[in-house]
C-alpha cells in the first residue's frame, strides 16, 4: 500500500481514538531523517525520510501511528495553547538562563507530558517507536525517565539517579506544570550544557521535532499573547518571553495581521504589543442599532366596535360581515418599533501625561497607558478615529502628537512613548486637534501640571465632552475640581487604585455610547 494511503488510514484511526481533534489531515513533508515530525500552523508533517529509515527497524504503520499519537497529544493536552507553552518556557529559562537550553528543556518536558498522557489513555505504538529511536545523550536520559514512569523497557541502561529524580514529577497534573518544569530543567541542566558544548541541536535534534509558536494558528497566537500579557506581572516579563520568539511569531503571523501590530516588514515591538494585548482583555461592545418608533401605524389588535365609533377600521372578517355591537370588531392601530439608524461615534482626542511622576510604561505596568489603550480600542472598534497628545514638558520638546488615525499600531506607539520630564502642556496643541465633529476628550494624568490654569480655562471654553481621570489627590486636583464644578461637559474621576483606570475609562465611554 502506498505511503499516502497508509497515512490516510492510520489518521482515521488515530483521529477517532483521540475523539476527532480539529486538525487538518497530516501529510508527508520534506524533513531530515533524524526528525520525524514537524507541526506548522496546526498542520502535521511527517518526514518521509524518517519513516523510511525507521521502517528498517519497525513496522511502518507503528511508526506513523506513534508519530501521529504524539502530535495529537501535544495539541490536546500539553501544551494546549501558546500561553501555556510560553509560561513553561519562561520557567525553564528562569532556571537555565539560556534561551536555547530553555527551549530544549521545554520541548522535552512537553514531550514527556503529552506522551505520558497518551500512553496512559490508549494503547499506542508510541512505546515501540521510542524503543527503536536513535538516541542522543539527552534522549537517553528522557527515555530512562519514560521507562520508569511508563513501566516499559525502552532499551535504556543507566541514568538511574537522574531518572529516579525526574520520575517523581507529577507530569499529568496541570497545576504543577510550572513547578515541575523548574525541577526538570534544573535536573537536566548539566546534560543540556554538555549538549550545547557539543553543538547542540544541530548534532542531535529531538527526533519528535521542535515546538515553536509556528505550530499554532495565528488566531491561537493572538489569544496566547493576550493571555500572557494578562498574566505577566510586568511588561518586562512579557517582553522577555516574546522577544525570544520574535522571529517565530512574526513568521507565523505573516499574513497581514495588522491588528496585532505585527506584519511583514515590522519588527515586534514587545512593549507596544504588551499593551495591545492587555487592552484586549478589557472590552466594551460595539454600539447596537437603537430601536425607535417606525412612524407608521399597523393594525395591532381588535376591540369591540361601539356605535358612534369610526367605521373605517372595522374588520369585516372578524365581524363575520355584521355591523352589530358587540360582534363587530374594529382594528386598534399602533405605531411599530423598528431598528433605527445609529448615530455616529465621535472621534476622540486622548491626552496622556508621560511626565516623570507617571510610571514608565516600558518598565512597569502603567495603568494610565492601559486606560488610554482601552479608550482607543473602544473608539476604534466603533469605527471612530483617535488623535493622541502625549505630553511631558512641551517647551523642552516633550510632546508627541498623532493626528487622527485609525492605525492601531501608530496609536499605541504614541501612547506608549514616555518622556519622563516636567509637566507642561500647550492648549494650542489640543486646539489643533479639534475638528468639525466635536471629538470627545480624554485626559489621563496625575494633575500635577505646571500650567494647569490654562488647561482649566480651555476646558471651560470648549464644548467637547471631557473626561479627566487622575490618580491620587493633591492641591492641583482640588483646584481643577473647583474650576470644573459648574461645567456639565466635564467629568472628573479620581482613582484610588491605578488598576481602576481602565474600568473608569470604559464606564464613561459606555455612558457616551449607550
Amino acid at each position, binding site marked *: 500500500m502506498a505511503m499516502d494511503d497508509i497515512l490516510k488510514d492510520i489518521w482515521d484511526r488515530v483521529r477517532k481514538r483521540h475523539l476527532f481533534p480539529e486538525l487538518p489531515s497530516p501529510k508527508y513533508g520534506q524533513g531530515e531523517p533524524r526528525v520525524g515530525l514537524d507541526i506548522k500552523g496546526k498542520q502535521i508533517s511527517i518526514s518521509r525520510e524518517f519513516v523510511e529509515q525507521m521502517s528498517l527497524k519497525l513496522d511502518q504503520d507503528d511508526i506513523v501511528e506513534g508519530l501521529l499519537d504524539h502530535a495529537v497529544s501535544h495539541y490536546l493536552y500539553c501544551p494546549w495553547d501558546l500561553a501555556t507553552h510560553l509560561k513553561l518556557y519562561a520557567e525553564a529559562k528562569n532556571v537555565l538562563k539560556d534561551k536555547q537550553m530553555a527551549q530544549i528543556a521545554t520541548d522535552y518536558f512537553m514531550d514527556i507530558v503529552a506522551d505520558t498522557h497518551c500512553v496512559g489513555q490508549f494503547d499506542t505504538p508510541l512505546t515501540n517507536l521510542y524503543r527503536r529511536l536513535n538516541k542522543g545523550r539527552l534522549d537517553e536520559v528522557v527515555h530512562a525517565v519514560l521507562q520508569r514512569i511508563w513501566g516499559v523497557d525502552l532499551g535504556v541502561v543507566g541514568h538511574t539517579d537522574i531518572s529516579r529524580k525526574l520520575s517523581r514529577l507529577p507530569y499529568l497534573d496541570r497545576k504543577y506544570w510550572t513547578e515541575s518544569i523548574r525541577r526538570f530543567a534544573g535536573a537536566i541542566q548539566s546534560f543540556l550544557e554538555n549538549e550545547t558544548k557539543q553543538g547542540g541541536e544541530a548534532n542531535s535534534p529531538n527526533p519528535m521535532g521542535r515546538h515553536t509558536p509556528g505550530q499554532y494558528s495565528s488566531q491561537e497566537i493572538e489569544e496566547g499573547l493576550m493571555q500572557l500579557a494578562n498574566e505577566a506581572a510586568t511588561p518586562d516579563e512579557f517582553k522577555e518571553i516574546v522577544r525570544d520568539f520574535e522571529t517565530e511569531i512574526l513568521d507565523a503571523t505573516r499574513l497581514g495581521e495588522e491588528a496585532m501590530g505585527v506584519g511583514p516588514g515590522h519588527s515586534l515591538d514587545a512593549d507596544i504589543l504588551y499593551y495591545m494585548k492587555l487592552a484586549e482583555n478589557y472590552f466594551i461592545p*460595539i454600539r447596537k442599532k437603537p430601536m425607535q418608533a417606525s412612524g407608521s401605524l399597523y393594525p*395591532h389588535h381588535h376591540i369591540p366596535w361601539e356605535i358612534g365609533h369610526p367605521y373605517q377600521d372595522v374588520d369585516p372578517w372578524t365581524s363575520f360581515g355584521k355591523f352589530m355591537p358587540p360582534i363587530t370588531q374594529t382594528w386598534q392601530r399602533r405605531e411599530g418599533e423598528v431598528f433605527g439608524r445609529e448615530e455616529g461615534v465621535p472621534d476622540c482626542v486622548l491626552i496622556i501625561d508621560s511626565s516623570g511622576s507617571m510610571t514608565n510604561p516600558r518598565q512597569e505596568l502603567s495603568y494610565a497607558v492601559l486606560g488610554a489603550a482601552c479608550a482607543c480600542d473602544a473608539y476604534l472598534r466603533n469605527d471612530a478615529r483617535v488623535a493622541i497628545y502625549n505630553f511631558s514638558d512641551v517647551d523642552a520638546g516633550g510632546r508627541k502628537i498623532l493626528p487622527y488615525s485609525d492605525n492601531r499600531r501608530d496609536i499605541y506607539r504614541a501612547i506608549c512613548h514616555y518622556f519622563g520630564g516636567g509637566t507642561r502642556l500647550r492648549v494650542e496643541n489640543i486646539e489643533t486637534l479639534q475638528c468639525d465633529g466635536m471629538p470627545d476628550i480624554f485626559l489621563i494624568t496625575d494633575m500635577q501640571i505646571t500650567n494647569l490654569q490654562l488647561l482649566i480655562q480651555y476646558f471651560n471654553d470648549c464644548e467637547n465632552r471631557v473626561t479627566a481621570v487622575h490618580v491620587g489627590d493633591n492641591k492641583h486636583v482640588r483646584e481643577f475640581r473647583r474650576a470644573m464644578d459648574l461645567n456639565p461637559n466635564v467629568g472628573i474621576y479620581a482613582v484610588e487604585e491605578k488598576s481602576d483606570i481602565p474600568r473608569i475609562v470604559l464606564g464613561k465611554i459606555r455612558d457616551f455610547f449607550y
Partner: protein
Amino acid sequence: MGEPIIGCNMKPKKDGALREAVLEIYNFIGENLYLNRPDIEINGDKFNSTLLMSLLTGLCQGKELIIGEPGLGKTTSAEYICSLLYCFPLGTIWAGEVSGHPEQTEEKIIGRPDLGKLNQGEEVVVWSHFTMLPVKIVDEINRLPETKQSIILDGVDRGNWEYLNDAVMNREYCLFATANYQDRATHTMIAPLIDRFDLMVESKYPGPNLAYTIGAQSAKDDILRHGELEDEFKSVLNEKTPVGQRLERIAELRARFGEALMHTSGIRSLSDSERRTIRSRLEAVRFDLDANAFLRMVLAELSFCCRFGQKRSQDNCEKGCHFTEYLCYAVQTCISNRLPMSVRIFSQALAWLLGDKEVDLRHLKAILPYTLAHRIQWKEETIARQEREARSDPLEIHMAKKAVKNMHRRYMEQGTQVKNALAVACRIVEGEALEPIQGDHPIYWEISKDLGKELIQP
C-alpha cells in the same frame, strides 16, 4: 444535468436506495438550482451548510430559520427542498407561502370564515394553503410584528392550527422561515418563537463566479414547475370539502408530479411512505457513548450555575467565579429542553445520510453550532470579545462554532473521566455503594445533584 458545479461533490453511497435518492436530490439542487460553495466539511466530505441543513430539516420534520442578505437564495433554497422532498410543484409552494409584513392577519395566515355560509348562520373555516400544506415557508418572518409572530407560535410548535372552533392538525410538516438582517423595517423575533426553531443557517453569497452563472441561467425554476398540475393543486386546495379528503387527492397529484419530474429531469423525489421509512430509520440510529457524554457535557455547560443553581436571565454571574473558563459564565440564560431534541434528531439524520451506524462526535460537532446559534444569549462582554474576529459566518453562528470547538476540546481532554463518572453514577443509582467521581467541570456537579449529593461550592 452537465458537469457538477463546484460546491457539490457528494457521491451517493452504495448502501441504501433511500439514502441514494436523498443524496441525489442534494446533488441535483446543488448543481442546477441553488448554486453555492461548500462551507462545511464532515469526515472529509464537503457540503453547503444551507442546503444540507435544509435537507435534514425536510427529512426530520424540523423547523429552520434561514438568515442572510436580501437576494441570496434564502427562500428559494427552501422552496427547492420542499418541492423535491415533498413532491409539490413550485407554483403550489409559492401559493402557500406566508410573507412577513405588518399587515398580516390571522385570517390571511391561518384561515377565514366562509362568508357565504356565515350569512346562512354556519361557521365554516376556509383554511389557507399555508395551513393545509405540509411544507410551510414564512418569508421574512422578522417583518411580522411580535403579535403576529405569536399567532403562528403554536402552529409552528405542534402543527396544530386553530381558527374559530375548528382545527387542522398537520400529521407531517416542516417549516422554513427566512429573515433578513436587522434594518429599519424589521422587528425582533420573540424569544419563545426563536427557541422553537431547530436550526439557524445562513444563505451565503456564492461568490462572483457562481453568481455570474446564476445570472446567466434563465428559467431554472421551470424544472420544478408544472402548469397543469399546479392548476389542479389549486383547485383541490380551494375545494369546499373536508381537509382530509383534499389531502388524499393532493397525495395523488403529488405522485403524478413525481412521475413528471422523473420523466423530465430524471430526478426521483420521495413519497410519503418513503419519508416515513426514512424517519423511522434515522430515529433508530443510536448515539455512541462519546456522543452521548459530550452532549450531556454541552448541556451542563449551558445550564449550570454554581452560585444560583442554574442559569437564569435575571441572575448575574460574578467575576472570579470558579467556572469562568466555561460557557456557563459567558451566557446569560439557561438553554432550553428543545436543544437536545433538535440535536438528537438532526444528528441522527446526518449520521443516517452519511451511512454511519451510530451518531458520533463528528455528527454532533457539525450539527451543534446550527442548533445553538439562535438559542444562546451571550453576555455583552463575550460578544464584544468576538465580534471583530475574522470569520466567514455571521456572528451568532461563528460564536456557536467557537463554543462547540472549545467544549469539544475540553471533552477530548477529559472525555474518559466524564464517561467514567457517568458509569459510576449508573451504578450508584442501581444501588452500589460508590462515591461519585469528582472533577472540575459542571457535568460532575450535575451528576452529583442527580444523585442527591450536593458538592461544596469552590
